[in-house]
């Protein structure tokens, strides 16, 4: 353990601090806060009650004011620490507040009302995690349904993406035919057309096909990605043609060459594309929002949007469900980051 810490804390200046040590620590800590801070803040805030979220200045940890059941009152009363004129500290429960004067009561002696200036009291608070932010949407608000829809869309879209894109890439990398590079250029050129440009015609197509308000309407338009075709093709170009010739001599059909030779050898690139596809489809918002108008078909991202009403934004639910939506993507990044970096390095895309 001490060796680990001495390895991690070793300095360029030996026992003294070189300026590069200071700079490195500053840079790393600063970067850590910059990158990780917002995410940590999100997770933290997702456990706060609506009241704690509205509080200013915000607190780091989720606090709630302690409540106490006092005899003679129907509702639990909030507890305050009060300093009286003599400088003695007492714990009182607040009954009501009028202007700057709070009417308070001693839980031990509920009959007597004590008037206290609100300047002289501070709420007595404890750290408490508002897990109902999570439980309520997941149980009552159909978020498990949305989660399932998201998983379905992501998994199906990814499988179909891998299949169709690898077939296209196989044809474009291993067959010589007239117009091959033209087709490739056309496919790559569609990278330059953003979704917002084709959203209306795409909607007409989906609607005419009767896929409106269907998860397949979300899945199918997204499966053919030029990025995927490009990335897989570049990778397949590195597979030696002699292997394919050898397979042809071995009586393999074209389908077998694709399925048993080329596809297994493309596995690293397929893994990268699978990761990208999962992240893309999981985070998709605009297109599902357009296609899906029935509540039970919502994906997570669309479902999140329902908490942001015109008049009332339920921040506590949004924050909590954002954390839920983030978890799979974060897991993908943690466990598959090696593939992601090679993918970005290999295809020059992200």
């Amino acid at each position, binding site marked *: 353990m001490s060796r680990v810490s001495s390895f991690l804390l070793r300095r360029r200046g030996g026992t003294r601090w070189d300026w590069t040590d200071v700079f490195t620590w500053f840079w790393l800590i600063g970067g850590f806060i910059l990158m990780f801070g917002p995410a940590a803040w999100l997770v933290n805030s997702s456990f706060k009650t609506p009241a704690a979220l509205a509080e200013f200045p915000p607190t780091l940890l989720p606090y709630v004011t302690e409540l106490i059941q006092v005899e003679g009152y129907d509702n639990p009363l909030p507890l305050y620490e009060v300093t009286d004129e003599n400088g003695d500290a007492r714990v009182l429960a607040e009954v009501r507040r009028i202007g700057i004067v709070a009417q308070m009561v001693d839980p031990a002696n509920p009959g007597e009302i004590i008037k206290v200036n609100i300047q002289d009291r501070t709420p007595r608070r404890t750290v408490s995690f508002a897990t109902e932010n999570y439980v309520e949407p997941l149980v009552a608000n159909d978020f498990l349904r949305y989660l399932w829809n998201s998983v379905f869309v992501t998994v199906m879209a990814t499988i179909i993406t891998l299949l169709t894109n690898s077939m296209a890439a196989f044809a474009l990398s291993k067959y010589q035919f007239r117009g091959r590079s033209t087709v490739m250029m056309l496919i790559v050129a569609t990278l330059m057309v953003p979704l917002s440009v084709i959203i209306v015609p795409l909607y007409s197509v989906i609607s005419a096909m009767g896929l409106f308000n269907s998860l397949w309407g979300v899945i199918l338009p997204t499966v053919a990605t030029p990025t995927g075709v490009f990335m897989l093709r570049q990778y397949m170009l590195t597979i030696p043609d*002699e292997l394919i*010739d*050898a397979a042809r001599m071995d009586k393999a059909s074209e389908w077998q060459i694709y399925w048993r030779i080329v596809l297994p050898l493309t596995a690293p690139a397929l893994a990268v594309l699978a990761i990208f596809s999962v992240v893309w489809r999981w985070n998709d918002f605009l297109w599902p929002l357009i296609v899906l108008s029935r509540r039970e078909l919502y994906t997570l991202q669309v479902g999140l949007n329902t908490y942001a009403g015109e008049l009332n934004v339920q921040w506590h639910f949004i924050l909590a469900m954002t954390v839920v939506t983030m978890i799979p993507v974060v897991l993908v990044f943690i466990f598959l980051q090696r593939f992601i970096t090679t993918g970005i390095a290999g295809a020059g895309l992200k």
Partner: protein
Amino acid sequence: MSRITLTGVSRSFGQVQVLHDIDLDIRDGELVVFVGPSGCGKSTLLRLIAGLDRPTKGTIAINDEDVTRVAAADRGLAMVFQSYALYPHMSVRQNLAFGLENARMPRAEIDQRIAEAARMLEIAPYLDRRPGQLSGGQRQRVAIGRAIVRNPTAFLLDEPLSNLDAELRISTRAELAALHERLSATMIYVTHDQTEAMTLADRIVVLRAGRIEQVGTPLELYNRPANLFVAGFIGAPRMNFLPAKIGGTKDGRTRLDLEGAGSLEVEAVAASAGDEITLGLRPHQLRLVDGGEGMTAEVSLVEALGSETVVHTRTAGGQSLLAVLSGQHDVAAGETARFGLVSADLHLFDKDGVRLQPAAN
């Protein structure tokens, strides 16, 4: 039975014609070597026979059956590739089984054939390894094994030894020869290495720029090269070429004037006096003589190898002349050496590079 006949086979890639009207008859059980410098079209020719590529003109027949339009898989041939082309994601066993599975052979027979090939090639201990875990020589055996299990009518080998180190190449060459002996199958072997061609071949096909220069047994090619190219290509070290002029023919002997290197008398050839010709002399044909008729040249470098002495010389005409003398000789750089001939096998070529025939009478 497997006889392969090529008739008028040509292949062009766009404007570039790679093969010109190749006619060739490969007999059953023969080991034919295609040899030539890189870019001569030998690998293309092999791919045409394999069916991986189609000729633009001409026909290919196996056992007198036209297979020009038949797919590679249905020609019953097996190929060993230069890079071996083993499937890297499959074990050796799966590599061997792949072709048989595609042919829907029963499992038991596949296993039996693999076992047999593994025993023959001594690859049984690594049947469950991946190609990436094998050495170059082992991979090479697996590649040959993959061809053997198919039990093909003919083997096509595309520079199978070029990725091995020198020592392994020699031992594998011997193994290949033994394998050919044992299987007595037709084999077509492509190489750019004339030594490989000489040691392995029943017949050699010398190719240059898409044309067949000469077809013959190794010794035919060595002893009677049809033209300058074959003469220069076959035999190591390379044949010496000296420009010469026909001096005149008398009593069935023709005198050759070697520009600045003396003169020689040879058996009469079909050429007239004054013709410019090229004389080809194998380095092994030269010996040192003390005087009289012969060629003189200045020694520039002597390599004494013990069993033989390699003498690099330069004639007065500026031509380099290499002599490989058997045994040890007392020659030093800077001296002038006088060479005679060990045998009368001279190679004379006219100014188009074609071998001169002996005079008719």
